[in-house]
């Protein structure tokens, strides 16, 4: 099931994509296709461009060169890394989830009873329904992450991009939220998550993109997560800590 009602299969194609900040590319000359209905983990060393790539897909960062081709209508939902949200902000858990309807409601359209119901269901799915009326300041970081997942659910997107969704979260919450990812995948959505827990990646993600500024490998998990590839990524990381060089390509 693609996201385009006319039967085209949605995909994101990277054409020689380079993204970065101020002459320092974090992602170098990336080519490839993010397939429809894939569940992909992005792994790689710190500073390897994982977050940068997600930001480029969302449109928060403009590519330095190359481009991202989006075929089909694809709504993207994005969960940033350690969100910059001020949790003392006076807003309730329920209202936070309702924000997820922005793509449908925009500036002025009211929230329907059906949407309220949907938001409550999303909270129920992440085990936070009894917190709906509480202010977000009353939540722990793990609980707040669950609420943000509920917001992602109601966004009803075609592509979910999650930047380290399980960082600083206890193992029970991780298991619960991972199940949410798997459900999205089973519903035919495309899911991409930056993950650091390699055993988890091996067990649960069918596809992996190993990124160390350049793409080391991209494909089915067993083919990508080889000793060789991981060592190569590590080696590259050590190199760029020592010196940055002008890109020849």
């Amino acid at each position, binding site marked *: 099931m693609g996201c385009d009602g006319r039967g085209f299969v949605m995909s994101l194609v990277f054409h020689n994509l380079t993204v970065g900040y101020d002459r320092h590319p974090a992602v170098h000359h990336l080519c490839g296709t993010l397939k429809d209905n894939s569940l992909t983990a992005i792994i790689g060393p710190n500073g390897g461009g994982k977050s940068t790539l997600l930001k480029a897909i969302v449109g928060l960062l403009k590519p330095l060169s190359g481009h991202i081709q989006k075929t089909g209508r694809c709504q993207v939902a994005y969960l940033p890394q350690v969100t910059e949200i001020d949790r003392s902000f006076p807003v309730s858990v329920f209202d936070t989830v309702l924000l997820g309807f922005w793509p449908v409601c925009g500036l*002025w359209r009211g929230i329907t009873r059906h949407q309220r119901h949907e938001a409550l269901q999303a909270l129920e799915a992440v085990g936070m329904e009894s917190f709906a009326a509480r202010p977000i300041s009353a939540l722990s970081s793990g609980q707040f992450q669950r609420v943000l997942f509920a917001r992602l659910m109601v966004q009803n997107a075609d592509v979910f991009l999650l930047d380290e969704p399980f960082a600083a979260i206890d193992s029970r919450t991780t298991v619960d939220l991972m199940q949410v990812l798997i459900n999205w995948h089973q519903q035919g959505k495309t899911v991409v998550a930056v993950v650091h827990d390699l055993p988890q990646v091996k067990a649960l993600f069918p596809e992996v993109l190993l990124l160390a500024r350049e793409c080391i490998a991209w494909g089915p998990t067993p083919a990508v997560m080889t000793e060789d590839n991981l060592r190569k990524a590590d080696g590259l990381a050590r190199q760029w800590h020592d010196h940055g060089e002008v890109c020849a390509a």
Partner: protein
Amino acid sequence: MSLYTILIAPFAEYGFMTKALLGCILLSLSSAPLGVLLMLRQMSLMGDAMAHAVLPGVAVGFLLGGASLPLMSLGGFVAGVMIAVLVGLATRSTTLKEDANLAAFYLMALSLGVLLISLKGNTVDLMHLLFGSVLAVDDASLRLMAGVSSFTLITFALFYRALLTEAFDPVFLRSVCNRSGVFHLLFLVLVVVNLVASFQALGTLMAVGLMMLPAVASRFWAQGFAPMMLVAAGFGLFASTAGLLLSYHINVPSGPAIILSAGVIYLISLLFGRFGSVRARYFPFKHLNQ
């Protein structure tokens, strides 16, 4: 001395007091809720900086037309928006953070403003622009305040969702809406027009006081966004009335009296407020048994 002579008579019997009160009501209704938004965005000091930023524009207006309200207001508006946009550009195209750029720009603006005024005016003019004179509010400035206040409240009503979301989770808004930058700019424009409207009454330095002090105090009494704005507006109204009465009865400058009244409200809230105050922290109500 009856309550009437203390509380009502000054406003009923003197036209300048009536106008001053009306002006303060208008400013409180729009500035204080806007201050809540500034506070929630952790930009409480930004209002202060923007208040300085309008000065060179006001000064240019003053140089061109003397103490003409329309020219000075227009100048202030242009200067304020220009500084806001320049700070935004500088922040986006360099590695420096927004607050650092803002500090640099407002300091330059303040100095430039003082320098320009001294070219033609004297210290009295300068004091007037910096500290205002709420008792000299005339019909023209009342109309400006009424216009700005209405504009602010209508904009709030129309773009409530966007302004709130942009303050709460700007990254989310950018990911679902490609015009989110417009709302940031709209918000800055609101701040600038409110400061411009109140500089005549309170001066550029104190305009921000009526914006921020009631807003900051409201945080201790309300938990939702809308209640906070209502409480802030109420505190603004109370502080302006108290300040004007104080200045009338004990013959002190009205601008500082208003801001200090708001300051007293803030201090009382800080100590005894319902949420997060000193009282709430050290002498909490009994906790829920669950």
